[in-house]
């Protein structure tokens, strides 16, 4: 599936269905169990490793590196009844500056991997990107990849971690939602609202955008507004893309219709599913 859209499994109408899994052919329970096991194994690695670098060489899920975060700064979820703003020039310049600092820290292998993933230049690079994302979205783990695959993914993880290290603010980014086959938009929203505690994980790397207007789609589509400190800003020269890390945990906050600043003096009405990053309680600094 394209990595510029997300799947959210709102197809389980009850908690029991989620536990049973295999709703609409999607084994939610198995994927959740894999994720829980991976997080437990990572916690064990963290506890035993002599350094964060050693731990990160063994972990299956990249940790957040947002140690320099000011949670009050930046953008947050839009309050119901208020207008969804466009990204400001100030926020672009700040995000661009922070990203430039991070890019200066990328080694050539990381820069090559990240560039090929975000801006693929040929069919093979697109195939690599899609295969990597499909692997994680289908419940695959880092360990199940071969050595080249693991190194490639670690280069992507490392690139994003360096961006997170330089980031000092919250972001509000958008992506489009894939409604599961056979489910109407109305059904989907009803089920999502009925399961407000049903958290979601974006398993693969996700391409989002700071500007909702830049996302292809029409007013009948569903869009996701995500509040997060994670990922790397890749916008520049009038663009405002943002790449989110794999295995990003989100909690459902709200779903509803919002007026969106169209950047041309007017507004459009769009349905947003609002989600917020779930922070993991992880070691984020070197052990002294």
């Amino acid at each position, binding site marked *: 599936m*394209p990595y*510029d*859209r997300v799947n959210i499994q709102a197809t389980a109408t009850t908690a029991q269905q989620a536990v049973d899994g295999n709703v609409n052919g999607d084994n939610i329970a198995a994927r959740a169990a894999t994720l829980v096991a991976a997080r437990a194994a990572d916690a064990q690695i963290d506890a035993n490793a002599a350094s964060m*670098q050693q731990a*990160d*060489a063994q972990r299956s899920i990249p940790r957040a*590196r947002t140690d320099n975060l000011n949670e009050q700064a930046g953008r947050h979820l839009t309050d119901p009844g208020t207008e969804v703003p466009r990204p400001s020039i100030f926020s672009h*310049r700040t995000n*661009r*500056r*922070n*990203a*430039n*600092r991070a*890019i*200066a820290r990328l080694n050539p*292998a990381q820069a090559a*991997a990240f560039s090929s993933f*975000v*801006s693929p230049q040929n069919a093979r690079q697109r*195939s*690599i990107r899609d*295969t*990597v994302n499909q*692997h994680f979205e289908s419940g695959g783990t880092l360990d199940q990849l*071969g*050595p*080249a*695959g693991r*190194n*490639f993914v*670690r280069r992507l*993880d490392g690139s994003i*971690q360096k961006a997170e*290290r330089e980031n000092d603010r919250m972001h509000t980014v958008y992506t*489009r*939602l*894939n*409604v599961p086959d056979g*489910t*109407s*938009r*109305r*059904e989907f929203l009803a089920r999502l609202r009925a399961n407000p505690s049903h958290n979601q994980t974006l398993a693969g790397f996700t*391409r989002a955008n700071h500007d909702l207007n830049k*996302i*292809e*789609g029409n007013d*009948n589509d*569903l869009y996701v507004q995500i509040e997060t400190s994670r990922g790397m*800003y*890749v*916008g*520049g*020269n*009038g*663009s*405002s*893309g943002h790449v989110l890390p794999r295995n990003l945990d989100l909690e459902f906050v709200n779903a509803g219709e919002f007026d969106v600043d169209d950047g041309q003096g007017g507004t459009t009405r769009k349905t947003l599913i609002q989600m917020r990053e779930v922070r993991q309680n992880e070691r984020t600094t*070197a052990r002294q």
Partner: protein
Amino acid sequence: MTDVNRLEDELKGEFGTVEADDFEATEVYPNDDEPLVSDEEADEQDASPFESSDADYDGAAGVDFTAPDED
């Protein structure tokens, strides 16, 4: 050929031979207490090396919104 094996072949074709574990060469936290570029230098570069335009951000690669619109 499995997807994992095909990915290995594609990565080796794209990036060359990969050592069994070259994580040391992709270290995550080198000297990250000191900024490598000044504020002025970081401000100067407005273009992203990873994205030429939002045209790359497409919804045109296939319509995945397959649910009937009942509203």
